[in-house]
């Protein structure tokens, strides 16, 4: 691998702290394994490694701290295993709880911005078009590449913090222009415009994209509407939970796809799939493990709920209290905004439990006895059973609110249109 003089000096320990050498060793060795010919400079990172998976990760990050490890570029943190504003909310037992906290603290000490959110792009971290970054958390990776047109691979535990400390990443994959060209067309032009205006369409389409595209870069053609930031967030999260999706072009919407030909770089696609209404319905149904009866909880905010999604929920609820716990996962940036206009109090009055800095599928917060968990998130639906034991039911936000108010499943199927 070709290294610059500076990179080589860090690797040899001639300049920098011991942690700089460790981080450079990890970045260069990972690059060699991936077949990268060089490293590139990066402008920001989003660190996924602050979520506790075992003591070893915490010990590694503490060794970086002891070795003088400091992030060299703006670095936001993904969720941790604890709500730092209400640490008892998670039933994570000792001694794991202590280690989970030590891991989060180690990231703060290395100079990370303590954002603790899986939607940092809604907390002010929005890399500019064309810039090179090293982000973790699959939904954020897909959002950065797709919606913002910045360039990152799917960085995971340890490599993410190593990239942050070196301000370098291996030059491979989606960092390189030639790997960002779509080879698969997903044509949604036959779906009704009304369906494509529904918020709940986006997580479902995302799930379908993940299954159809996997690791392939695809281009979605025929969208015909301008999706909102929250809709694109839901689409990216759905896609990245069912497939190793890093980049989705959407014609007329995303910056690298002003038109179909550009997304394909003027070449013919290897495959075109026409998305039918039935495929959307089948994908929607695959997100539910139950169809009727009572529900035990509602979980919202994967990725983390935005201020506007909270406001939408307040409007839909019209002040009518919930019969089952409604968990809203969100970042502290959103809590601050909700406190400013008294929305936080209104949400709590309805019976909402705010889950800050973390999320219900990564730490035990949902009721200990598994039950039926309703959600409008494809990602929650995907991970619920494996991570929590709760059985998911997917619905629109309006369905979730009505169901929470009645304590049983209420779903308005008309939004999905007739075949």
């Amino acid at each position: 691998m070709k290294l610059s003089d500076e990179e080589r000096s860090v690797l040899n320990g001639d300049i920098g702290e011991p942690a700089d050498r460790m981080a450079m060793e990890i970045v260069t060795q990972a690059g060699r394994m991936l077949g990268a010919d060089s490293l590139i400079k990066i402008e920001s990172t989003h660190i996924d490694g602050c979520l506790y998976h075992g003591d070893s990760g915490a010990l590694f990050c503490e060794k970086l701290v002891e070795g003088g490890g400091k992030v060299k570029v703006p670095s936001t943190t993904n969720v941790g295993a604890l709500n730092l504003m209400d640490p008892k909310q998670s039933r994570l037992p000792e001694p794991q709880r202590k280690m989970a906290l030590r891991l989060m603290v180690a990231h703060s000490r290395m100079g990370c911005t303590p954002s603790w959110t899986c939607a940092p792009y809604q907390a002010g971290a929005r890399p500019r078009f064309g810039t090179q970054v090293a982000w973790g958390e699959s939904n954020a990776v897909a959002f950065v590449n797709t919606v913002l047109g910045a360039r990152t691979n799917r960085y995971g535990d340890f490599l993410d913090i190593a990239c942050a400390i070196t301000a370098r990443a291996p030059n491979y994959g989606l960092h390189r222009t030639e790997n960002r060209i779509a080879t698969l067309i997903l044509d949604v032009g036959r779906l009704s415009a009304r369906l494509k205006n529904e918020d709940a369409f986006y997580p479902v389409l995302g799930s379908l994209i993940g299954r159809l595209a996997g690791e392939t870069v695809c281009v979605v053609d025929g969208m015909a509407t301008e999706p909102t930031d929250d809709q694109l967030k839901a689409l990216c999260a759905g896609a990245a939970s069912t497939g190793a999706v890093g980049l989705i072009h959407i014609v007329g919407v995303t910056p690298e796809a002003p038109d179909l030909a550009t997304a394909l770089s003027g070449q013919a696609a290897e495959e075109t799939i026409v998305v039918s209404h039935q495929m959307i319905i089948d994908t929607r149904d695959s997100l539910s493990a139950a169809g009727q009866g009572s529900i035990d909880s509602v979980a919202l905010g994967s990725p983390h709920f935005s201020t506007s999604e909270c406001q939408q929920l307040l409007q839909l609820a019209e002040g009518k209290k919930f019969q089952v716990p409604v968990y809203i996962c969100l970042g502290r940036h959103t809590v601050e905004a909700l406190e400013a206009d008294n929305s936080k109090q209104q949400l709590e009055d309805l019976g909402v439990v705010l889950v800050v800095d973390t999320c219900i599928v990564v730490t035990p917060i949902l009721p200990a006895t598994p039950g039926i968990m309703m959600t409008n998130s494809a990602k929650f639906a995907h991970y619920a059973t494996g991570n929590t034991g709760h059985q998911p039911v997917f619905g629109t936000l309006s369905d979730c609110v009505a169901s929470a108010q009645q304590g049983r499943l209420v779903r308005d199927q008309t939004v999905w249109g007739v075949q």
Partner: protein
Amino acid sequence: MKWQADVLFTGNAKADVLRLDAPISFWGGVDPVTSKIVLANHPQLGLPVANKILVIPQLVGSSSSSAVMLELVYKKMAPQALVLCRRDAILPIGVLVAQQMDWPTIPVVVLADAPFQSGEHLQIDESGTITKCD
């Protein structure tokens, strides 16, 4: 018989093969405490990966698998070696970090279409040469 694999992380190993007959993500797929496969419906469900030469035709999903790999090393429940069929950095990064922590490491090699089946006894050397032992 001998095969020459590409070396991602060098080392020596001699152990029985456990071949994973379906794709797996170590995060959510391997219990970092017991080292057992815990992915529902996986053909190797319930089998421990500890001390095996683990042959992995296809990896999927989570980049948190690096953390599970490191935890297996830390708890002394790691496989003896990994034989991947495709270049991938997620699991080897767990091994790289173990090296930085001065914990024991294991060889990680890549051999496309690795033909090894569960129960066979293999030896892997530092240059990536794999030998079937009788």
